[in-house]
């Protein structure tokens, strides 16, 4: 029973973080039609910035805010300087086919990932360093029993929930959010109705950058920080996004929690070594049974 509760609580707090990562991927996919494999590289970079600020005596919350802002700025810059010029090159011979139009941005994002990781290695050295949590990492005690749920878990789940609510409101209630949804639906029509699609694309990169930086800040206290620790989080986030439906924000959240539970229960009831095989099994099962994901729309698999 205790193992079950422990697995459930780990699954919830990890699931919340995976939901955030998946949401970041979905936002860029909807806004720009790109799966951004560099996303957790960007998160790693801004988490290092936060870690440096803390090491220099700034408070956790200053560093926290700085990481979110730098994550957003980095996302926007990557879109403006790399992804936008790339999508304007569609006339070139190599990009004339639909399959290569899908492949080339992926290759670019892998290049960005490699560059960010190498740069982080040069600036901050490659050895792992710890990263603080803003709340206690010991379980609550009720009547002498230590529960497997910590204050930090409460913090993670509540801040992620808050982020999800804010994002939902942003996409349904604000002008920019609606413009972004219109761009995702049909770029040409959105352009014709006066939406500046280049700008909405950049904004989706910025939001995704901030969301994944938040995920980076929340997951590093439980592991360690090094240039490629977050690669695995990206893999899980991608799987979560595919499980939920790559074009559905609600699906991303659902997928995040499903993956959190799968990983947590495999870790507790089997061995941590099987986690990757479990992720692969979930991914293949979804792709075979329901390729568009649980909540994905029918044409979600546009190339």
């Amino acid at each position, binding site marked *: 029973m205790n193992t079950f509760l422990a697995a459930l609580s780990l699954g919830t707090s990890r699931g919340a973080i995976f939901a955030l990562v998946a949401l970041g991927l979905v936002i860029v*996919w909807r806004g720009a039609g*790109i*799966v951004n*494999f560099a996303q957790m590289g960007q998160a790693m970079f801004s988490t290092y910035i936060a870690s440096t600020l803390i090491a220099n005596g700034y408070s956790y919350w200053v560093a926290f805010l700085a990481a979110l802002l730098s994550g957003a700025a980095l996302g926007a810059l990557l879109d403006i300087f*790399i992804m936008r*010029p*790339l999508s304007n*090159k569609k006339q*070139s*011979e*190599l*990009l*004339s*086919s*639909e*399959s*290569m139009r*899908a*492949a*080339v941005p*992926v*290759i*670019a994002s*892998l*290049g*960005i*990932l*490699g*560059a960010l*990781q*190498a*740069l982080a*290695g*040069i600036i901050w*050295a*490659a050895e792992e360093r710890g990263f603080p949590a803003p709340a206690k990492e010991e379980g609550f005690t009720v009547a002498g029993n230590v529960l497997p749920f910590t204050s930090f878990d409460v913090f993670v789940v509540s801040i992620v929930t808050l982020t999800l609510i804010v994002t939902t409101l942003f996409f349904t209630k604000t002008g920019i959010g609606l413009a972004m949804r219109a761009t995702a639906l049909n770029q040409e029509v959105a352009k014709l109705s006066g939406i500046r699609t280049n700008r909405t694309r950049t904004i989706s990169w910025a939001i995704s950058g901030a969301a994944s930086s938040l995920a980076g800040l929340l997951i590093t206290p439980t592991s360690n920080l090094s240039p490629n620790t977050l*690669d*695995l989080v990206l*893999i899980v986030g*991608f*799987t979560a996004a*595919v499980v939920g439906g*790559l074009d559905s924000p609600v699906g991303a959240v659902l997928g995040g929690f499903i993956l959190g539970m799968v990983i947590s229960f495999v870790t507790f009831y089997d061995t941590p*070594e*099987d986690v*990757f*095989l479990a*992720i*692969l099994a979930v*991914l*293949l099962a979804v*792709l*075979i049974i329901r*390729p568009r994901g649980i909540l994905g729309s029918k044409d979600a*698999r546009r*190339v």
Partner: protein
Amino acid sequence: MRAVSNLKRKSIARTSLIRTLIFAALVLLVGAQFDAYNQAQLAVVLILFIGVLSITLLTGISGQLSLGQGALMAVGGYSTALLITNYTLSLWVAIPLSVISSAIAGLLLGVAAARLRGPYLAGTTLVIALAIPTIANRFMSVFKGDEGLQVDVGYPPQWFSSLFGEPTYEQWQLYVALPFAGVALFFASNILLSRTGRMWRSIRDNESAASLAGVNFSRQKIYVFVISSTFAGLSGALYGLRGLVGPSVYPVSLSLLLLTAAVLGGIRSITGAFIGTVIVVFLPDWIELILGNFGLSEQVSNFLPALISSLLLILTVVINPAGVAGARLHKHK
């Protein structure tokens, strides 16, 4: 009609054969000038060239992006290592057999991948690249976990030494890799020039048009995966024979390195594949040569090659997506 196409086939084979012979002659000529270290590096170039060709065929020619070539290399590497250590087979027998096993892995992957497109395929193959090496720890008794299996190219047979003189270990590495790289080059060139190559390009360029023209694209996609996996498996088998077959030898970064090489050189051309491989293999040495006198800290020099090759990759994609060999594109398309 038949006679014409037979004639065509012969001339394609002849063109490929001539290319292969020129390639082999050049490698031997250049290899003879190199010192031991650079001969070993040249052997790595030949080995990875085969792996890069697997990406040229898969991504450049048929338009499917896979980030899991390293996992297929691992299949080839482990098969060879197990055949050599458990059955004491010669590498000349073990390698062709393990190529078959990687072809079977490619068939399974292809059946799954034929349904996937673009980023879905890329992400799924990336997960596969991460998941496959963990199997080595799951079945410790067979694959020996993180420690891996130790294998090497061994010594040349008696007749070779008496005919050509005793080669050094590095030279022997080069002589082992060369025939396999030659065979890979011959087949890749044949595929690119032939009807199969045209069919694969048609899938890449427009699936609907290809299928209207009578190309069974699901079957062809699986076929591409099988062929590409045999290349990757061959490359992985030779890569392991440098000393060790283990999870650390075939990391995800190896898959990404191959992709970088293919894109830098020019993802649609065989020449490009070779140029790209030379770049990624020798880049650390070149950087050392240029910046060695500046007294860079170890921290910087460790990561500089990765930083530069990643930046080159981004620049290539944004500015010159056809790669170094791009100028030749118009000829072969």
